[in-house]
């Protein structure tokens, strides 16, 4: 049993013949935040989906919360919260109905649904269909879904996209640095991303181009990834 939240050695993942991730090696301690930078198509979302157990790694050794993927993926399931560009919510159902559905799947008490709706400031519109909510509200509902089961590891793909500053402030204690959770966060904002993280990972063409504690790097090195 490892005490690391994440342990990746030589992770590789392909889509057909095209490599999306190659030889990614890193470690992350419990409670720490890994912030992932890289241009579009660098492999950030693929990395999150592999860590969530939604994509099989094709090479290397991947351990998430002590579970080796994919064989022991069932041990990590239910302990990971994933927030992607897709909210993973049914458009015809309300936020409350979606959260009740996920609460049943995760074995979470129904009262928790009201708690998270309150926490993301969505109680007033909780009974409106997702299809009728603004993008920012949908994002807040998606955050509520991601934290509903109090996950040990949060995987956040540009979590503040579509959010105004007030909404971002509401969500900070839930998914931000002050949440105290182990997090992997993708970002295109060098300054904001570095302020969020403990360790920075830069991906380019699916390969590790930068991996260092944030205290040891500056914004310029992150910007070079996008050059």
């Amino acid at each position, binding site marked *: 049993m490892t005490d690391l939240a994440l342990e990746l050695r030589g992770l590789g993942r392909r889509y057909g013949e095209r490599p999306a991730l190659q030889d990614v090696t890193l470690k992350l301690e419990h409670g720490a935040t890994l912030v992932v930078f890289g241009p579009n198509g660098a492999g950030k979302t693929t990395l999150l989906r592999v860590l969530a157990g*939604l994509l099989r790694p094709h090479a290397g050794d991947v351990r998430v919360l002590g579970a080796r993927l994919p064989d022991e993926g069932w041990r990590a399931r239910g302990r990971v919260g994933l927030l*992607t560009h*897709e*909210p*993973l919510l049914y458009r015809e159902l309300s936020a409350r109905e979606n959260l009740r*559905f996920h609460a*049943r*799947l995760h*074995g979470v008490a129904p009262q928790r649904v009201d708690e998270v709706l309150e926490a993301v400031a969505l109680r007033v519109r909780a009974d409106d269909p997702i299809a009728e909510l603004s993008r920012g509200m949908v994002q807040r509902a998606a955050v509520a*879904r991601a934290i509903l089961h109090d996950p040990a590891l949060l995987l956040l793909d540009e979590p503040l996209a579509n959010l105004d500053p007030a909404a971002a402030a509401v969500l900070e204690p839930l998914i931000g640095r002050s949440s105290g959770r182990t997090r992997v966060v993708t970002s295109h904002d060098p300054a904001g991303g570095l302020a969020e993280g403990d360790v920075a990972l830069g991906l380019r063409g699916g390969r590790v181009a930068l991996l260092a504690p944030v205290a040891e790097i500056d914004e310029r090195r992150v910007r070079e990834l996008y050059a």
Partner: protein
Amino acid sequence: MRRAVGALLRKDLLVELRTKEAVPAMALFSISTFVVFHFGLDRSSLDGSLAAGVLWVTLLFAAVLGINRLFVAEVEQGGFDGFLLAPVDRTSLLVAKVLALLAFLVLVQLIAVPAFAFLLLGPSPWQALPELLAVLALADIGLAVIGTLVSAIAIRTRARDLIVPILLLPLLIPLVLAAAQATAPLLALDGAGPLPERWLAILAIYDGVFGLIAYAIFDFLLED
């Protein structure tokens, strides 16, 4: 597993209640097809094996419409990802989808079978109603199990609307044949004959075999 099946089934029924995508289309298709048969065959009433054939072919093609839509929300709205992140047995999705499709088929047949009796059937359907219900139930279970399996295979392909009928229809030929053979004597013009137990047994065996196949391979269909 019961908790997960209950949650998934409840969600599917709620989504169908809101969207009304599958059941109304299937029911309307059935009635339209009966009307087409009515004029196409140029007969005001049918009985025996012809009536059974028309009924089952229509129900089969109506089922294809629902089967095509069965996993659409899971793919287009991220339902698969949400489900796969949860600490539940993956077989619960198979069971819930089979039950949802079964519910859709029963709802459609509550409309389609009386419509068939009204528009096309010569003899009264009441003369052997319990036997007819038994055939419908066994055939529906087979349709639901095989339909769910094929829909899960097809949903991740780009040509799912083509893949479903291409895969589904050959697999359902024995089931429709057995259902039609079991139904034919129940719709005889000179009074309902006894239920052919041999065909009923074939339906039950076919349901069982595909139930086991679906149980064995469904988990692998959810892998990326």
